[in-house]
């Protein structure tokens, strides 16, 4: 059973122009030290939500009538969470999170909820959920535990250079289309800010390829209107140490294999 509730505390975004990002409640709220109180603890995706909010804030500062904003919705993906409706909405209000809608669904039908709500990016800490959503044509990214230590004043999105390079196949698979259009929208948002002091930073990371791959990726992204801020080419070096310095919130990748890595 799928149901959607609007958050009346928050101004609803433009249905056509806003970029809908769905985050699972499990990622946002911590239920481990559950004392059964009214309000959940802060979860791993908190800095991410704050960073998304920061981008919106700065976009509106630049242009008060801006409609290209992030539209953040919370989505439950299992029956247990589905029961906790009032606790979820209550916790959201308590922390003053800029969430416009709540989608309550179960394990079986959450992908339906994603499609119904025109979700352009689905963020979860659960790899299986990400795979399922991806297989159903929704761009997904995996959130990991180091997200908790990521900055909250700047949204840092990592784009995989190895994936950008893929030759354009005809017809373009649904997964790729999603990633391309999302990165284009990010590019449009990014353009509203100057080089320094931007609330949004786009980081290109080439894990396997060398400088040729990276150069091609930079040019390809530029042709799509995405001006990358940082570029890191690893050419096969161990990724752990570099990624932990980078501290990006999530990796944008248009191939399912990225989620399987």
């Amino acid at each position, binding site marked *: 059973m799928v149901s959607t509730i609007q958050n009346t505390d928050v101004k609803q975004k433009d249905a056509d122009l806003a970029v809908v990002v769905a985050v699972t409640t499990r990622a946002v709220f911590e239920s481990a030290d559950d004392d059964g109180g009214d309000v959940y603890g802060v979860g791993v995706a908190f800095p991410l939500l704050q960073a998304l909010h920061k981008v919106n804030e700065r976009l509106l500062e630049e242009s008060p009538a801006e409609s290209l904003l992030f539209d953040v919705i919370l989505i439950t993906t299992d029956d247990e969470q589905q029961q906790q409706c009032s606790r979820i909405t209550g916790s959201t209000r308590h922390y003053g999170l800029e969430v416009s809608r709540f989608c309550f669904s179960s394990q079986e039908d959450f992908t339906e909820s994603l499609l119904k709500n025109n979700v352009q990016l689905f963020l979860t800490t659960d790899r299986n959920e990400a795979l399922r959503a991806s297989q159903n044509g929704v761009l997904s990214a995996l959130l990991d535990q180091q997200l908790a230590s990521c900055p909250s004043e700047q949204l840092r999105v990592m784009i995989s250079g*190895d994936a950008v390079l893929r030759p354009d196949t005809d017809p373009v698979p649904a997964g790729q289309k999603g990633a391309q259009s999302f990165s284009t929208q990010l590019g449009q948002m990014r353009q509203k800010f*100057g*080089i*320094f002091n931007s609330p949004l*930073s786009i980081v*290109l990371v080439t*894990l*396997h*390829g*060398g*400088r*040729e791959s*990276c*150069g091609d990726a*930079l*040019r390809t992204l*530029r042709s799509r209107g995405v*001006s*990358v*801020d*940082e*570029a*890191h*080419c*690893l*050419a*096969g*070096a*161990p*990724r*752990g*140490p*570099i990624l*932990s*310095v980078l501290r990006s919130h999530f990796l944008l990748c248009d191939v399912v294999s990225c989620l399987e*890595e």
Partner: protein
Amino acid sequence: MSEIKPSEVTTVDGGEEKDWAAAKAFFDNLKTNKPRPVSSFTQVFVLSSSVSLTDFLVLNTIINLICLMPFPSQPKPRFAVTIAVSSRTLFNMVAERKIYEEEGVEKYVAHQVEHESEPLKPGAAFPFVQALMNVNSRLRELYPDSEELFDIVLMTNNHAQVGVRLINSINHYDLTIERFCMTGGKSPIGYLKAYMTNLYLSKDSEKVTEAIEEGIAAATMFMPETENELSDTQLRVAFDGDAVLFSDESEIIVKQHGLDTFFEHEKEFENKPLAQGPLKCFLEALGKLQRKFYAKNERLNCPIRTFLVTARSAASSGARVLKTLRSWGLEIDEALFLAGAPKGPLLQKIKPHIFFDDQMFHIEGAQELGTISAHVPYGIGQKYHRGKLIEQPAKKE
């Protein structure tokens, strides 16, 4: 000071091995040189024989596939001797820097993007990088499967849009630089550590100082006024002794108590090794690669040569230095004791690809006579200029 990387394989997490396997699979195990540009090669082929369109397309595809895997796999950071160079040391970006300082970052980036297809001119670290590449070729000949090589990483604060021009320039000169970090303004220190950097070269003395404080060998590079002709078969590296290879403990005695006290002290403590300086580990890394050539009977033809160029004199204070090196198990090929004579003329004869010194006085002297110099901002020498204590402005609390 930065520790030399362990050479035996320690347990790695599955992620690292997977990266390595994936990279190898991606590159294929082609150990040939860089590919020729596709278009010119196929053009020549087409011109030289009558070939049908389909043949041409097939050939082009094959060449494209080969070109996708153009180079031997990169060594893993923990085995390699990693040299991180900044964009301004690798290339001459003086004119562009001026635009950045006078017109701001947006104009600077726009300028770089506009001139993207124009390769940049070589910078101070360029000959050094080429010499490193030459050593790698020699090492690959003798040890085709070894990962104990130089790994050159471009470490720059530049915005990624400037990166395209940097990549084009690297392509133009055929440099084997496959790894880079374009941090878009963020500090490079974390990345230097992530790459287990053995030496960091930059034009920015603040970053260099920060790196040294974090235990990474680093130096600020200076372009010479004239250019000496350098060897293209042998990497030649010259080091000052005190406050570069060794700590500044003796330097302190000279500055605070004078030369006589210094000589007495050094004679008295001749058999006590000096403490390490910031570049000791880099010399150690060079030594490790040198021994690989000795092991294959290439001592006379070794493509790495190291020099100690010190103001100490052989008679009085030199012994302690040599004994210290011996106690560390390090060799230096030539030790030159100047007893206070200027270093410039001697360096002009040695023609190193890089000369490290902690005192700007010596750097300037070397620069004037055509030696590429690198300042190591470490120790008591930083508080003095030409023998006089620099007045430090009172630090604000």
